[in-house]
């Protein structure tokens, strides 16, 4: 059971020394209780206090970092079973699998494509995270060469996949500074893999398909060998076993504070699925249900995009309204003569309007005002969506340069702004749109004549 801020505060030195970065001991205690900062940030803690607090403040699922300074993936440190309970913090890494037996040229082409894949989604840049390189050749030198070449092409986080400690050693020599994830320690090779992980300060996958009991036994051995940064591989998981096993692992970590299994999980959805189409579906499920690293067997932008979107959606904070970046968005392929609508930057509002505009058959311009993530009526009531704000946005985003006409359609719910907006936007025609986004299509059909 997590300690309350007050209980933690009782153990602190109460000096408000600010060395932890917080202005008071209480403010620090509150952050610790949310597990937003480790108790060790307090340097004046007495030994007894540290002992009392450390266990209680240690994240139930260890945060694991893969990758170097330029690009890294952080997974783990989740605190809830359901995103509505708080939020899911660390989006799973999506990695593309490469084989060291494939022609290097083709491999590097894929690496290049993956590295350059940037999907712009409403102001956010979405990308895949890195590669899992498999030592298919069983040859250490080939493996190392491939790893080196990939790393030279794009310094993205890596998973190195080989059961052979020697091959792993060779590959690590070429890539250890980028902190790749070592895949994997098994009950047969764990001592050597642990050595490598320690030597190169890299995170290590503990792989044990037999049972959770044996998986826990393996992680404990690795802990004893001095490896703390672990990732779990409970073996190949189909739709049902993935859901059930990964749920059990999350529960064990969160509800039982079961340390041996308190690590993020790596999955390989292709291992249990019969087609690329099916692989994508299972990967989608694993994004929602508790995977930490997902290794995809092939790269296709057409499936990367929906998976990245799924990840973005599941890992948004449900208690904060998601905000769109304000600006002017083309919906469809609008011309200068196309309709101009205005709305707020609450994401759901934006999506409702954008979806309807998209479906209306009228390519349009959508001006999104900064209302601090509030919906139309709420923003209006809070004074964050008024005539002045709209007029300012029209100027700030240089709307007049995009369109040839001077008509702007405002949401029907704020019809009241019309008069004021006429004053603010001299020479413009202010049109009052429908109160519900659903009616936008009909509205444009009836009233848009340009």
């Amino acid at each position, binding site marked *: 059971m997590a300690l*309350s*801020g*007050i209980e933690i*505060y*009782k153990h602190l030195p*109460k000096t*408000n020394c600010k060395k932890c970065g*917080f*202005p*008071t*001991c*209480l*403010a620090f205690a*509150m*952050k610790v209780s*949310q597990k937003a900062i480790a108790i060790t940030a307090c340097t004046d803690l007495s030994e007894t206090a540290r002992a009392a607090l450390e266990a209680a403040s240690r994240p139930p699922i260890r945060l694991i970092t893969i990758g170097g300074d330029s690009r890294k993936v952080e997974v783990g440190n989740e605190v809830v079973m359901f995103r*509505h*309970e*708080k939020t899911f913090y660390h989006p799973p890494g999506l990695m593309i699998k490469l084989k060291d037996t494939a022609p290097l040229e083709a491999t590097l082409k894929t690496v290049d494509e993956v590295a350059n894949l940037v999907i712009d989604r409403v102001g956010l840049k979405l990308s895949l995270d890195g590669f899992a390189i498999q030592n298919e050749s069983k040859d250490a030198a080939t493996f190392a060469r491939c790893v080196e070449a990939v790393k030279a092409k794009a310094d993205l986080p890596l998973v190195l996949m080989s059961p052979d400690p020697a091959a792993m050693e060779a590959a690590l020599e070429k890539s250890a500074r980028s902190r790749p994830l070592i895949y994997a320690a098994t009950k047969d090779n764990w001592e050597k893999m642990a050595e490598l992980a320690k030597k190169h300060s890299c995170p290590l996958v503990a792989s044990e398909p037999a049972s959770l009991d044996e998986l826990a036994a393996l992680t404990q051995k690795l802990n004893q060998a001095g490896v703390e940064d672990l990732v779990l591989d409970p073996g190949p998981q189909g739709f049902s076993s993935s859901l059930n096993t990964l749920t059990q692992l999350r529960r064990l970590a969160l509800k039982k504070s079961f340390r041996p299994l308190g690590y993020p999980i790596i999955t390989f959805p292709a291992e249990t699925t019969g087609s690329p189409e099916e692989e994508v579906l299972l990967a989608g499920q694993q994004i929602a249900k508790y995977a930490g690293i997902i290794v995809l067997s092939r790269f296709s932008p057409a499936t990367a995009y929906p998976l990245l979107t799924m990840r973005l959606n599941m890992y948004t904070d*449900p*208690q904060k309204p998601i905000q769109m970046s304000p600006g002017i968005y083309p919906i469809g392929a609008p011309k200068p003569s196309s309709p101009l609508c205005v709305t707020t930057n609450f994401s759901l509002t934006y999506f409702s309007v954008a979806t309807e505009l998209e479906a209306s058959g009228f390519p349009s311009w959508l001006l999104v005002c900064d209302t601090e993530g509030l919906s139309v009526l709420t923003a*209006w*009531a809070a004074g964050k969506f008024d005539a002045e704000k709209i007029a300012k946005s029209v100027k700030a985003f240089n709307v007049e340069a995009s369109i040839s006409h001077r008509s702007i359609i405002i949401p*029907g*719910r*704020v*019809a*009241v702004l019309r*008069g004021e907006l006429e004053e603010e936007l001299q020479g413009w025609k202010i049109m*009052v749109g429908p*109160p519900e986004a659903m009616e936008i299509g009909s509205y444009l059909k009836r009233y848009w004549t340009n």
Partner: protein
Amino acid sequence: MSRFIATSAIRGAHSVIADAEATLKDALQKMGPETPVAFTSTSYFLPVIFGFTGQKITKLGDMPAALQHARSLLPPVPRDNLWLPYLGETLDAGVATLFAEEIIEGIRFAKGQQPEQYNGHKLNGPIDDVQMRSWGIQMVDGRMPGFAAIVGAAKSNEVAVEIVRQLQSRGQLVFLCSQSNGRSIIDQLRESGVDLGYDTFTVTFGTDTYSAVYALGYATRAALSFGNVAAGDIRKILLYNKFRCFAFVLALGQVDDIKYATAAGAINYGFPVIADTVIPNILPSGVTRYAHVVSLPFDDLPGKDDLEKAQRLVQRCVEIRGIKIKIAQVPIPVAYGPAFEGEVVRRENLRIEYGGKGSMCFELLTTKSLDEVEDGKITVVGPEIDAVPDGAKVPLAIVIEVAGRKMQTDFEPVLERQIHHFVNGAEGIQHIGQRDIAWLRFSKSAVNKGFKLKHLGDILHANYHNHFGAIVDKVQITLYSDPEKVKQLMGKARAIYSERNIRTAGLTDEAVDTFYSCSLCQSFAPTHICVINPERVGLCGAYNWLDCRASYEINPTGPNKPVAKGKVIDAAKGEWEGVNKFVYENTQMKTDRFTLYSIMDQPMTTCGCCECVMVLLPECNGFMLVSRDDYGMTPCGMTFTTLMGTVGGGLQTPGMMGVGKYYLLSKKFISSEGGIRRVVWLSKNLKESMEEELKAVCEREGVPDLLDKIGDGSVATTVEDLLPLLEKKGHPALTMAPLI
């Protein structure tokens, strides 16, 4: 129970049953028991008998058993010398009558005499299933409240037409049957050229009283189709009709024994009987929701002519049955809707102003009894707008009188506060303030479109019915623009306001056994629940206990639910068994205890919209309060926004919680920790805007100079700065029991 009515009804029942027995005997002899019997296109057999007994009558031979049953229900006619309450007997006699009437009509069908040919027209007779279903859906979805079964004939043809028109305009189905002095309302309507038929919601049953049983057959079938009721489950059928089918019997002209007997049958269904002649009243409720039998002698009704009396008669019928009114369109000459609420009427477009600086304007809503209020009556006392010059400033009093069976005086301020919201919906009309600081501005464009003072009445009348129909049955509005009148009434209004203030202030947690919840914020803080008690407002500051109570009465399935306090666990901390149970069940089992007067021990959860956040300052042995509109740093080292991130989202955080600012003034303000004495720092804007009230509270708590000892953002934004100040001024918190 009226003995006269009981005697008449029971006597009538005897006569109908005797008639049915003779008719059946004759029919069986002449046609044989195998002769089929069926009403028009129905799968409910003889529906009243089917509904009451589950018996499916398909042939003459099935009838004797049912009639036997009717006979067995029949009580003896009361003797002159013996007085009994008779209600049960009369109701039984009514049921027996309906059985007998249905049997007679069934035999008539078998003989081909139904539906009846009358004066060259074919009457409709019973309603077929297809139509019943179509109307039934409208009754369930509320478009059609129910039906009026009119028995007899009106005073004149014009009166008959007006009564039917009035009923139609309310969406009420009209069933027509029987006669009075040889005339039937069917004749009266036909002679006046009124179209009768399904399309006009008027159904002709027959020219005798027996055919009135079709109305009850219709009601029975509606319950069987829409009430999830099985045939034979008569209790459910009757209750369904009592609560869902807003029907009544309107007896026009003389009421004879058979009409009494049939009416007694209708009363079983919860349908009241209203007569336009002098008969005894049976006013108390019971089987019907309100009165059972009401006499409204036509000539005694208010109204300047018969047409007005007819309107009044229907209006009274609607009230007696408790039919709620909905007004789809607010009848005013300008646009109306929420989009106009925030509109400003600027100087250049101002036509007339009521109240504001240097003028007088107030609004008052009070409760009256049902017969003191005439629904929809709007009176303007003093000059209308057209009599006032451009740009004038004129006094105004908006006096609203409401009546409702569920209305309570406690709801008056809740309803009164809605005036602002309602009036602002009109395009070109601006409303500011409330009570005696109300201020209205009418724009030129609105007045040019024909907006008048009386339209304020229309707006209010429509909105109170539409939004508060659950508690308000009748609304009348008087608008005083006569300066003398306004002045005179102002004193009275102020007395009422101050009475209300005292009452609200005197409302204590101990005085009630129910608190209210508010789950409005669960859409984004699923594990948060507010429990609102009389001495603590919701943490958003927007809802107090009375608001929540009214909201629950208006919308029992809405966000505010009653929370029974239950057994007290800790009176000092404000912990009750009932509250804990409710909290547990409504926070997805995340929070199992809740104290209402403590911030240190299991305080209330906090959502994202609290007015203020209160935080422990351990160094000062007290608490600070920061308000939402204070953007500055605070002594706890966190701004309001950072604090929200820590405490919000439905968490229970000892030492921290969200509160509404008026909680500061409550006697129960963290009373478990020592109340206002523990406040060591307040946002400056809070301190300033609530200065008077806070001073009064400090007086009340016996620390009159406390406010001066409390820090604010202008003197300290860190604990290091605050603590010496508190020490210097001798803040009482420093010497109180340690909080940690």
